[in-house]
């Protein structure tokens, strides 16, 4: 069952046809974002990215608040992130991203909570600074074990001219806790992406380098850009510890204020989601000389490759432990292969996700014999695409900020055996009789990272692709009618 090889010309013809449904101006614009993959990364086939979505097109994208509160700050468990503004933003992000954390909810863990200033009309008219100051005072009364506060700005804050910097600075002094203003209003930028950057900058300005550790070792590292979705960071941390490394900070899944404040002491930063945390990695490199490297813990091929790459940075002790760890994982990897590969071999996948996944999960699918035949980023930049082209098969369709229409049409034409995207795409796919997995939330499963995660990933892809429900779509009388 080898999927048919698609040539760039065939892909281009499909793209032309699909995009012709747009109004001419939009069509021209979308052509810049949708291209057949060129593994060599040639200029011709470079996908345009990180620009505004056209109004009315039905983008998957979110906003800067989503990138800051939803991605970077929200998972820090002992810090209270106030959704500052009207009630909605915090409501829609309440626990939906599955950033797992150990701790007691509402006591020393504030992740799955919706804490908001709940703006009313009078706050818009008269400003919300006084209210914010009062909220800070109430917070420490009601949640005495909170180790810090972040103020996650929603759209109105920047529009009505509130000065959350001043209120936060005063709050920091008054409460004796870090109170971090974050200007991540939803209208800033063009997607979640600027929110990541703003969130990183806020960490840099208010957290980074502010505390020390009692002892240091040559093997101290941080795990950056892992949000512990379904326990991802724990599965990744396990590998790093098996390698003999000491993970002094985990950002930001199951992370703490202390870990934000001591990360600068690491000898190396390892970065999983490049898109959302490259900024702080670069800052630490500039400010403290801490080197950083990207890695990929999806699927055996990339896990082993990444482990060796990380071990290269350290001495022989680590290299030996790394090889021993790799050897110890092999039987498990073999068993996963033996169990699932024959069920998934040759199956095709279309992806549309954020962050790192449109490229990072490709290897894991390939480890199972599956082939990615279309992929793209919700909010990627040029550097994401540059990293992706060589990882993808020549000629497959690459779409930046794909619209609901494009996803539906490409799926209709390419007939993938599996689509991996988000909640907004899931049920469209089900109606279309196309197996689907949510690749943001792991569809309430996970972890998918690490050695343990690979088995879960394989099981879930198998359950989606091989569910017997897909065989029941045709009513017997309907096919009889068709003759």
């Amino acid at each position, binding site marked *: 069952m080898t999927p048919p090889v698609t040539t760039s010309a065939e892909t281009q013809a499909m793209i032309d046809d699909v995009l012709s*449904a*747009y*109004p001419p101006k*939009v069509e021209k614009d979308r052509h810049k974002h949708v291209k057949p993959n060129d593994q060599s990364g040639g200029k011709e086939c470079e996908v345009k990215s990180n620009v*505004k979505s056209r*109004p*009315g*097109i*039905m*983008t998957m*994208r*979110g*906003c*800067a*608040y*989503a990138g800051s509160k939803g991605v970077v700050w929200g998972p820090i468990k*002992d810090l209270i992130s106030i959704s500052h*503004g*009207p*009630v*909605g933003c915090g*409501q*829609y*992000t309440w626990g*939906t991203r599955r950033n797992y954390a*150990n701790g007691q*909810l509402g006591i*020393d863990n504030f992740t799955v909570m*919706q*804490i908001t200033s709940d703006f*009313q*009309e009078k706050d*818009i008219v008269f400003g919300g600074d006084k209210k914010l100051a*009062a*909220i800070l005072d*109430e917070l420490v009364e009601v949640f005495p*074990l909170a180790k810090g506060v972040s103020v996650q700005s929603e*759209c109105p804050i920047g*529009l009505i001219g509130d000065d959350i910097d001043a209120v936060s600075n005063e709050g920091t002094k008054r409460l004796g806790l870090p109170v971090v203003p974050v200007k991540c209003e939803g*209208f800033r930028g*063009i997607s979640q992406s600027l929110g990541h950057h703003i969130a990183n900058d806020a960490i840099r300005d208010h957290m980074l380098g502010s505390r020390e*550790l009692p002892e240091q070792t040559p093997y101290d590292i941080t795990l950056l850009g892992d949000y512990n979705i*379904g*326990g991802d960071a724990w599965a990744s941390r396990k590998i790093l510890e098996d390698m003999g490394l000491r993970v002094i900070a985990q950002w930001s899944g*199951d992370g*703490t204020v*202390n870990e934000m404040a*001591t990360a600068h002491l690491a000898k190396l930063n390892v970065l999983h989601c490049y898109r959302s945390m490259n900024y702080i990695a670069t800052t630490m490199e500039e400010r403290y000389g801490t080197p950083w490297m990207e890695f990929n813990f999806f699927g055996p091929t990339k896990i082993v490759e990444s482990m060796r790459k990380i071990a290269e940075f350290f001495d022989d002790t680590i290299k030996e432990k790394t090889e021993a760890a790799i050897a110890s994982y092999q039987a498990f990897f073999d068993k996963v292969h033996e*169990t699932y590969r024959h069920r998934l071999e040759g199956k095709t996948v279309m992806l549309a996700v954020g962050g790192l996944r449109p490229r990072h999960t490709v290897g894991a699918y390939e480890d199972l014999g599956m082939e990615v035949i279309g992929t793209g980023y919700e909010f990627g930049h040029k550097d994401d695409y540059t990293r992706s082209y060589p990882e993808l098969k020549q000629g497959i369709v690459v779409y930046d900020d794909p619209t609901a229409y494009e996803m539906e049409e490409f799926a209709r034409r390419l007939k993938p055996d599996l689509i991996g995207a*988000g*909640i*907004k795409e899931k*049920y*469209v796919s089900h*109606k*279309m009789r196309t197996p689907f997995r949510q690749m943001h939330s792991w569809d309430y*499963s*996970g972890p998918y990272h690490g050695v*343990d995660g690979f088995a*879960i990933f394989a099981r879930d892809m198998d359950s989606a692709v091989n569910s017997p429900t897909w065989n029941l779509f045709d009513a017997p009388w309907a096919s009889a009618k068709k003759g």
Partner: protein
Amino acid sequence: MSTSPDALTVRDHNTLFNSPEYQEQRERKKQFEGGSAPEEVARVAEWTRSWEYREKNFARQHLTVNPLRACQPLGAVLAALGFAGTLPLVHGSQGCTSYFRGHLSRHFKEPVPTVSSSMTEDSAVFGGLSNLIEALGTSVHLYKPDMVAVSTTCMAEVIGDDLQNFIASARTKGAITEDIPVPYAHTPSFVGSHVLGYDNMLRGILSYLTEGKKSTSNGTINIVPGFDPYVGNIREIKRLLTLLGIKHVVLGDHSDSLDSPATGEYHMYPGGTPLAVAGDSINADATVFLQALGSKRTKEIVNGWAGEAVLLNPPIGIANTDTFVTEVARVAGVEVPDEITAERGRLLDAMTDSHAYLHGKRVAIAGDPDFVNGMLGFLLEMGMEPIHVVSSNGDATWAERAKGILAASPFGAKATVWPGKDAWHLRSLVFTEPVDLIVGPTHLKHLAREANVQLFRAGFPIFDRHHLHRFPIYGYAGGLHLLTQLVNSILDEVDRNAPDHSFDIVR
């Protein structure tokens, strides 16, 4: 899979992290966390369950923690989906639209097509006119709706965008034709909740579609469900009205839009009230509102229609459904058929059969105002005792009505009604004055687990249980469904916790 002894056992997050290696990892990580001492955490946790903490918690003036309500445009999207061929367009920042689509999809397990005008920083300076024009032009060209229903996010509201003028500009500039209906509603997130947003959008749609359509009676009864998270409710109401022989129109009907069959083809606009039918609703003999409190804005325009406006409590339980049936029969001038009386009798029969397991149960209930008031009727009919009655988006009017419902039954005597309070308030209430059961949305699950009280999921949103919304809780048939779920979930708990001798074969 293979069943050999060395077969792969896949452990996911439910069991994986209980293993010793991960437990050790968890302990090792603590040295870097700078967390509070376990004794301190335990002490504070205990203290937060005390009366002293309750007073501190209720003294909050500015801080909101775990509110059970969303914002206006979410409701506006649902209202739009109740009309045939209608594309919801939310004017403002695009992230909001993604949130609404995700939120509704998580509850309904269905696609939610909605577009955004994707306003960015420059729109904050120059206004969102060009964004709205392009959004209308592109979405109508691409997604070919019969109608676009426009609502707003708080960004557009703060900068004061004027939808009426903007939509008119889109027509004069030729982005859309003159004939495509584009009703609108201003739906600022900093006023009201999703319930008000639904009401505002419905009003906008009906004002638009009925304009100039006033004529003689069409012999129809309008049904306005309001923000109804149960598609099964709308289907049940239609079934009842058909049984009664009443010609009816649901304004708006999202039962097919958010519960379409899997066929192998995706259709963007399944179902919804036909636009012409909605336009003629102005000529109905009566308009019956199933959510009296959540329909105030729409009622204002219906007041100008010829037919009578009837405001009801949601038809949950016997008496509320009796009122619904009586009222629709009255306004339509029909007799109630025996078949409905028999249905009523079947529900009642089941209620008498099950009452022993529900009688005297102390209940905390939370949710949207009308939902809570409707449910109270049913709980009281079963001899259950509401103790804490919370609605984060309930106002003084809601509280008065809820108190009236409670006062009419001896089983309501122990209840306290809490308008505008959130789920963190409810946590204090449940710990200081314990209950046997919590009724409300998914977001109460942490509280229920911590207090070791069963959560009966009802209302909106329900993210962590499947398909409850596809069944009705309205009408006699809905009452039977509700009762079945309720009594069996209680019996499941009884069995789970029963000592061996009490693990009875018959219950």
